[in-house]
């Protein structure tokens, strides 16, 4: 069995999750604390990937980054970056596609903490950044974990959007979900079974770990 599609899937999920953690944190902080009239618009935009068919996202991505003209041409010619049918393109589109799965838990975690924790730290002279890392994040570990895991799992489960903009280039864009689709098309059931079982098992174990940790099942062994 060729393990490349599985490795590619986990690589994509890992990179997407790591980058999103950095990008989503300021966004979630802003959404949790702002009183700007633009907030509902920003929230709607962040949540779009939840309801939008992945093909729509993929289609616009293709149009926008096609190296034939416009932005895609500019990127290709001046920076040598081609985002369609490449791993880099998959990462960029995954960032968009999984954005709500990271932002929502973080935003909810931040807004459920009592405002006085932040205020107390400010009055002590702590900067917003120190307050975030030393006071707020340590008190919302469950939200952080939920965001990381949902984002990772959701990226592992990507199919439509990858098919649209990535195609199925071995070692480049042929992730596990695409490999399963192709194996079934080619009536190669043993391969489809192998990939599917591994994804099934990993997904279950990841989610089980989250619920065990967030449910405090491990704490009794530590204290």
């Amino acid at each position, binding site marked *: 069995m060729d393990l490349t599609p599985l490795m590619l899937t986990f690589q994509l999920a890992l990179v997407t999750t790591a980058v999103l953690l950095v990008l989503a944190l300021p966004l979630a902080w802003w959404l949790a604390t702002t009183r700007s009239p633009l907030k509902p618009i920003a929230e709607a935009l962040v949540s779009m990937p939840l309801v939008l068919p992945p093909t729509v996202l993929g289609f616009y991505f293709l149009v926008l980054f096609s190296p034939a003209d416009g932005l895609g041409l500019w990127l290709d010619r001046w920076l040598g970056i081609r985002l369609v049918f490449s791993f880099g393109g998959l990462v960029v589109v995954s960032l968009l596609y999984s954005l709500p799965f990271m932002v929502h838990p973080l935003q909810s975690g931040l807004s459920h903490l*009592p405002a006085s924790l932040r*205020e107390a730290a*400010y*009055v*002590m*002279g*702590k900067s917003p950044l120190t307050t975030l890392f030393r006071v707020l994040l340590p*008190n919302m570990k469950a939200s952080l974990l939920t965001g990381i895991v949902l984002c990772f799992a959701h990226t592992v489960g990507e199919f439509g959007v990858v098919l649209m903009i990535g195609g199925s280039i071995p070692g480049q864009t042929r992730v596990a979900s695409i490999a399963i689709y192709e194996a079934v098309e080619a009536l190669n059931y043993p391969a489809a079974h192998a990939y599917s079982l591994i994804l099934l098992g990993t997904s279950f174990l990841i989610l089980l770990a989250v619920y065990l940790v967030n449910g405090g099942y491990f704490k009794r062994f530590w204290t």
Partner: protein
Amino acid sequence: MISLDIRKRLASATGEMQLELALEVAQDECLALYGESGAGKTSLLRMLAGLMKPDAGHITVAGQAWYDSARKVCLPPQRRGLGFVFQDYALFPHMTVRQNLAFALHPRKDEPLIAELLAVTGLEALQHQKPATLSGGQQQRLALARTLVQRPRILLLDEPLSALDAAMRTHLQGYLTDIQHSRGMTIILVSHDPAEVQRLASRVVALHAGQILRQAPPADFFRAPEQELSAEVESVREEGGKWWVTVRMAGQSVALELSAEEGSHLQAGDRILLAVSVLPGSIRRV
């Protein structure tokens, strides 16, 4: 020295309220804010701390503008260098008692001060526990200690000792008075306890619906103009060391709880004179 003159529109339980306050507080003064809930006491503390922005006016502290609507100045809370004991304590749940104190201490670790405050607040034995394992009174003491560790020039206390038993309360009131004098600190406290106000404060400001109703030294403040009412004793009964005396005055029966000293001398049918005084904020329209 604090000088403020601020206006702020606030949403209160009974609708919108216009807060309008002008106050001067001397550098080593301890000022008590007194009044019913929703009068604007906590809002005033929050505006001093920079956690709430007034609509207009100015706040000047030791010659420095902390807030000035005309010059568009609003100093962030980080740069005001004051201490604030929150009503909900705002303890950091993931830090131990000692870590809470160490985090508040800046810029360098001042171990002797931490040790002193742990001793004064009686939290030494609990210093490695998390706040969630402490009782309400212990949490309140930690909140106070964490504020004092910052060596603030101005201390804002929102009902700082309400959860403590009488002995600990007296002990900490004494400590507060001591360090106030030794550090030359300004204290502004919100309290509903006349005894506490009398012990700590040099001036009481009564707030009502966002306005200053009255201000006076505590002794005068709580010694309201007295009036004597004549009453007739209806019944006297003792229960668990307390004397319950029912008197009839102005056509109504009123039950009074008296000390043994006063209660034991009375019997049904006696005519007595009662001195009546009204605490500000204790009157309610029905």
